[in-house]
């Protein structure tokens, strides 16, 4: 952990020395612009859209070429790994072509396909193809024979051997191939754009060189480096999601909070206390609403940041206050002490937790009031309604949560209200389309709550807490679960069919297998331990579904620009 700070020393020192040398006149400003100058140019290019356009063009070429190549590459790689004949026939060709420097193919590709987009996409596709084929094949070949024996002894047929052994066992290798191919594709496309400068980051760099605009060259290089870094981070996350069984280095033993140095302890203590892992429930709708506005043509980073930080602050405040009240009620049973580790380890006193909550509420309200002042009264109304809903959720004689209204309230406020609010902040208006798009997210949030209620059917009944789940009974509440999940997918498809949302949001359908798994588990089990998994799984589903919708809208924007 400490190393992370040490990691920064060399790059920061490098930049500082560079800046100083320029300031002292030791480096010629015309050839080596100071980092501050490059940064200023970067922001300028972002503002006038030049850099964004170039990045989008480069990314689009990469994405198209990548998808065109990676899919057949995986199929061919699997075939070559699994089948000796295919390996003998295709192997020599692949091994012969693999080491050819792909950038050297540009002239031939241009002769064949012209100098348009097609040839640039083709170059990316060629670069990706070989890496993925070779890694996939190696992956299958490296699967230990005994796994196939075990599978066959258990009754697996050839198709099962492929789907239940060869593919999952070689997935780590396939992903490594894809990871390498992404980095390679970036190198090759930027190189190609240098040779054929028609749009894209490479062209931007080349054109800037021609007019001796050195800061722009550096700005372009920075974006390329950031893209490469982003791919690595994204692939790391993809691997973690797809390969949960492969935690190479076990998580280091958690250090007790007391043992941390003081400043780190302060930050980490509060970080844990606000329970950041619950934030996706509020982050997802805010991002979705804001991105929808961007899709419709209105975007401000500042407003987005304020909306996001404001919502997260309110969420953090809510978590802290809830923990405080849980603690108050649970004084006699230390085990029932909520999930707040800081409170549990005795680092924070309950009073500190309470005042922390007040602080975050104040911060959130302050940011909210800024939005009210600059963007209009609608935000105030939404805010007041939300606070009231939050308050009467568990308090008062007719608390929503106790009369079977929990799902509806959560649906409205964590779905449409948050999404339309964030949209309004950017756009200064709302429309029915935004409401419609927010429905799937709202249904899934309601579904998380319902999964909770399904687990607590018996307890809640004993406590006279009436939830929809215990009013309906075990069987019908399962149907409610199916309806909420199914409803969100159905709405999504209808949104696209009726042209309310761009087809790209169908990306969220990628979560269908997970949803099917959850419904199956919910269909069979009553044990709280199993249903706990359903709750966590549903929250996970909501998060992934939301982010895939967001990714879909971003993809639609990219498609529009080009």
């Amino acid at each position: 952990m400490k190393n992370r700070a040490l990691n920064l020393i060399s790059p920061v020192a490098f930049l500082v020395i560079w800046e100083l040398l320029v300031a002292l006149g030791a480096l010629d400003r015309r050839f080596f612009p100071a980092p501050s100058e490059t940064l200023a140019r970067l922001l300028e290019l972002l503002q006038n859209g030049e850099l964004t356009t170039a990045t989008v063009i480069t990314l689009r070429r990469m994405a198209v070429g990548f998808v065109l190549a990676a899919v057949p590459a995986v199929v061919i790689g699997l075939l070559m790994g699994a089948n000796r004949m295919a390996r003998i026939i295709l192997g020599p060709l692949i091994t012969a072509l693999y080491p050819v420097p792909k950038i050297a193919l540009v002239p031939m590709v241009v002769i064949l396909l012209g100098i348009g987009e097609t040839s640039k996409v083709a170059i990316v596709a060629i670069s990706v193809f070989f890496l993925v084929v070779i890694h996939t094949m190696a992956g299958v070949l490296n699967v230990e024979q005994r796994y196939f024996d075990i599978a066959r002894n258990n009754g697996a047929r050839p198709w099962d051997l492929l789907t239940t052994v060869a593919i999952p066992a070689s997935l780590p290798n396939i992903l490594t191939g894809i990871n390498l191919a992404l980095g390679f594709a970036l190198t090759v496309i930027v190189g190609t754009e240098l040779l054929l400068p028609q749009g894209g980051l490479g062209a931007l760099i080349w054109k800037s060189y021609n007019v001796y605009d050195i800061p722009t060259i550096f700005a372009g290089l920075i974006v390329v480096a950031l893209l490469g870094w982003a791919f690595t981070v994204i692939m790391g996350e993809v691997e973690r999601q797809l390969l949960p069984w492969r935690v190479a280095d076990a998580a280091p033993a958690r250090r007790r909070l007391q043992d941390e140095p003081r400043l780190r302890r302060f930050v980490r203590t509060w970080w844990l206390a606000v329970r950041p892992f619950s934030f996706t429930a509020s982050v997802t709708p805010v991002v979705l609403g804001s991105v929808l506005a961007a899709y419709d043509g209105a975007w401000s980073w500042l407003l987005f940041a304020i909306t996001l930080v404001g919502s997260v602050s309110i969420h953090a405040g809510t978590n802290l206050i809830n923990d405080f009240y849980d603690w108050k009620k649970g004084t006699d049973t230390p085990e029932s002490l909520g999930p707040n580790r800081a409170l549990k380890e005795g680092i924070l006193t309950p009073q500190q937790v309470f005042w922390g909550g007040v602080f975050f509420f104040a911060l959130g309200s302050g940011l909210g009031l800024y939005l009210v002042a600059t963007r209009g009264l609608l935000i105030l109304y939404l805010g007041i309604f939300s606070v009231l809903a939050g308050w009467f959720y568990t308090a008062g004689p007719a608390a929503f949560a106790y009369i079977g209204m929990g799902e509806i309230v959560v649906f409205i406020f964590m779905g449409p209200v948050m999404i339309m609010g964030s949209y309004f902040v950017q756009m200064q208006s709302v429309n029915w389309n935004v409401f419609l798009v927010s429905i799937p997210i709202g249904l899934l949030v309601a579904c998380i709550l319902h999964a909770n209620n399904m687990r607590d059917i018996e307890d809640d009944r004993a406590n006279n807490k009436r939830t929809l789940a215990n009013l309906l009974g075990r069987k019908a509440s399962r149907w409610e679960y199916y309806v909420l999940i199914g409803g969100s997918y159905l709405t999504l498809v209808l949104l696209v069919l009726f042209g309310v949302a761009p087809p790209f949001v169908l990306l969220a359908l990628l979560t269908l297998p997970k949803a099917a798994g959850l419904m199956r588990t919910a269909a069979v089990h009553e044990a709280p331990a199993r249903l706990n998994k359903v709750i966590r799984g549903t929250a996970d589903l909501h998060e992934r579904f939301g982010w895939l919708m967001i990714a879909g809208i971003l993809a639609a924007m990219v498609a529009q620009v080009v």
Partner: protein
Amino acid sequence: MAIIETAALTKVFPGPDRREINALGPVDLTVEAGEFICIVGPSGCGKSTLLRILAGLEQPTQGTMTAEATDLQRPFNSMVFQGDSTFPWLTVHANVEYGLRVRGVPYRERDEIAARMLRTVGLSGYAEAYPYQLSGGMRQRVALARALANDPEVLLMDEPFGALDAQNRALLQDELLYIWDQTGDSAGGGARKTILFVTHSIDEALVLGDRVLVMTAAPGRIKAEIRAPFARPRRTHELKRDPVFGELSYQIWEALRDEVDAARASELRGQR
């Protein structure tokens, strides 16, 4: 009733320089339904090959094998492999229900069977864990549960506890005996499972089996057969105090010793 019978079973593998390696046999073996048979023999004598032939993973070069399946609805055999044989990419639960899944048993049914098997081997709390999170002994129990979930007529076990430390080994032996007794109850579907258990350990063979077969050095044939006359249910650590146990253990070692020497001599020849 004989459930498995082999006659003059041999296996020849192609070796380097177009030579042939006689790995096994001829083996004549009769296994009665419900018997627990242990097979000991020196390293490389073809014990595992014999088991793999019985499992259908390998074809014999010569000789015949007849298997008398009584119930065509159930898989005839399931094997517990040597070393770690869990699928690392599946959770414990998914590992146990693997055989049921590829055979198309409906979700609800296989889920229930897998949960029951995990209870049987004492791993209920680890259903959603991945194998890398378990110890070697726990993984071996997962492999056992997977074989049991198939509900085969014959259980083939290839040195399943070979890689475990002595304590874990003793515990799992007791557990295996207990589970085997359970399957013999009327609740477990009537007849006890037939088990063929390959091991290096003479003590393990005596503790577990009804009969202990001693194999010769490669190509392995059955050299001797010793009955383990101890009453069931057995407690492994108490059995070892029985003077008969010591005597039988000595007899098996006497039969095995020449073969181990022979195996070692041929290994040395191979080096030169």
